[in-house]
């Protein structure tokens, strides 16, 4: 953790009890199994992975919507992992979030202005005319008109709602934004405008961002650094250039080669098509979690869980069979 680090996550873990009832406990779902990363000022870390890999849980843990089972979350040097709700309240001025679903993330019974301005009241930042002024200001900033403050969420389109969600997050002037799949529910044509807005605002306000998405293309477009998750663990993390240009983990490679490219000419590229499904996080395979699907798996992979080790240049990978002669 360097002095300029905004967020530093260390060995973060979260497990859920699943199934079972009053009489028996049927199992533990290890949603996040020891995740560590840093985000610097003005930096966007893209967190990618397939559904169920735990990337959203990481976001929720950082927002304290879930309580971590173990590990530390340093926000500007303060470990918020163990903070009570009350103690966390002032920290929510430093970290804010944007949700995936533009429909359910806005209270349908509140006006747009009230939704966006609520934090001002809660944190006693502003009230009355000052509050209205500041809400109007942020409205303009996210590309909405101030005269839309009295409208209700259902009167906005999906893209506009996501702008409201952004405005709500930004009104307390946070340093870090956790954006959990902020565009995946939007149509392509709308998605672009929200991505553009996010990038613009990030630059203007000097925000740090954790950008959680399953869409490799979008992550590549917005992130400075990228972390790839598989079954609750980060398997590879590094600069965008390294991850997309020279991925070291077989899973990252497979993921990249699986993304359909919107260019018919790219059809004939070589592809790694993984076999089978992601194993259940309740009962992950021994050794490397990816070994069941890995085309390069060896004996050691079936026994030992690989650590996330640096390979130089801030790039880290968790693989026994590092891929020096990448086929890419």
């Amino acid at each position, binding site marked *: 953790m360097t002095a300029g680090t905004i967020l530093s996550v260390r060995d973060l873990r979260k497990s859920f009890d699943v199934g079972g009832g009053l009489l028996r406990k049927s199992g533990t779902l290890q949603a996040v199994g020891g995740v560590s990363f840093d985000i610097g000022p003005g930096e*966007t870390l893209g967190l990618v992975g397939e559904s169920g890999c735990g990337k959203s849980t990481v976001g929720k843990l950082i927002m304290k919507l879930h309580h971590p089972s173990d590990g530390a979350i340093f926000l500007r040097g303060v470990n918020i992992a163990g903070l009570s709700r009350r103690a966390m309240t002032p920290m929510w001025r430093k970290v804010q979030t944007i949700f995936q679903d533009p429909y359910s993330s806005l209270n349908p019974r509140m006006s747009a202005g009230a939704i966006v301005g609520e934090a001002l009241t809660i944190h006693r930042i502003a009230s009355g005319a000052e509050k209205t002024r500041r809400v109007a200001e942020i409205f303009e900033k996210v590309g909405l008109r101030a005269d839309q403050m009295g409208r209700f969420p259902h009167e906005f389109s999906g*893209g506009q709602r996501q702008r409201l969600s952004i405005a709500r997050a930004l009104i307390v002037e946070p340093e870090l934004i956790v954006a959990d799949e902020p565009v995946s529910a939007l149509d*392509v044509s709308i998605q*672009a405008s929200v991505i553009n807005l996010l990038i613009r605002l990030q630059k203007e306000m000097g925000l740090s961002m954790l950008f959680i998405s399953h869409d490799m293309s979008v992550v590549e477009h917005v992130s400075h650094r990228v972390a790839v998750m598989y079954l609750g663990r980060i398997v590879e993390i590094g600069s965008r250039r390294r991850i997309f240009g020279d991925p070291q983990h077989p899973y990252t490679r497979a993921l990249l080669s*699986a993304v359909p490219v919107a*260019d*018919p000419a790219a*059809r004939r590229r070589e592809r790694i098509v*993984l*076999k089978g499904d992601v194993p259940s996080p309740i009962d992950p395979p021994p050794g490397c979690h990816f070994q069941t699907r890995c085309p390069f798996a060896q004996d050691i992979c079936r026994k030992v869980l690989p650590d996330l080790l640096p390979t130089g240049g801030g790039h880290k990978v968790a693989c026994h069979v590092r891929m020096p002669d990448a086929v890419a």
Partner: protein
Amino acid sequence: MSATKSIEAPNDEPATRPAPVLEVRDLCTEFRTKAGVGRAVDGVSFTLHEGEILAIVGESGSGKSVTSLSIMGLIPDPPGRIAGGSVTYGGRDLTRLDEKALQKLRGNEIAMIFQEPMTSLNPVLSIGRQMTEGIRQHTGMSEAEARKHAVEMMRRVSIPAPEKRLGEYPHQFSGGMLQRIMIAIAMSCSPRVLIADEPTTALDVTIQAQILELMRDLRATTGASIMLITHDMGVVAEMADRVVVMYAGRKVEEGRVEDIFARPRHPYTRGLLAALPVLGTAGEVGGTQLNEIPGVVPALTDLPNGCRFSDRCALSTDKCLAEDPPFADRVGAHSAACWHSDRLAPTMEATS
């Protein structure tokens, strides 16, 4: 990307084109809602040829799914109905066939798979039952024969231990497996046409790759024609031979996949392509802006006059606002419904 063919060159010779299997002509499908009657599909025409993959692409509300359901005769009536047009298959107009005759075709000659494999299979019936019932319906096989055939089909879509899994229920499978099973069901009577409605949208990208590969293999081995409905330009680029682009119930552009991606002739198509971040093409963060299409897809009960895209179109002129552009075959088989198609191509060349 680079343009490999000149704009004027004819893309395809009718003589070399395989025979049409399914022809949709001026299809209109309406829905009655509280807000009024909405034409979800309004005068759409296209042809699916022997052995090809035709992608129907568009955003939500474009009418692509309704088109596929109309072909299958699966529009819920009420509130929907086919208000006009024809769907010709094997010399017969499917929109005029009675229920019995349609039943003989469905799942037999024209099969369909859906977006959500989890909800598209009946949760209370075993996989075996759901696989065999269609086979028995169309082939008259005995239960035992049908099961054997089902096992065979499951093997073809790479389901491990198929005999055992026949007795299991949908909740015991993963999404990717279920989609394989859906495909197995669809292919079990060797249909000539497979309609795949967003078959991979609900799936993770690595699973999507598996399914797309499977569909390509099946096309290669069975020679079935595939109508692929999707909103994902990436999937289109990977899979399609030809593409139909839909917007607000209309076909706005049609052509070979290379042409569509290289030289879109409709501003909407162009906008969509430019809005998409393409893997491996990104510069510095914030260095390139994605193209934005302003506004939203219009409601079907409240469409703008003239061109339906006019209110969101950068090229829009008074003519666009006043007159609906006809869908015209301008350049061979690559055509679009736009007054300004010709102004587009050079612009595209310039930016790419």
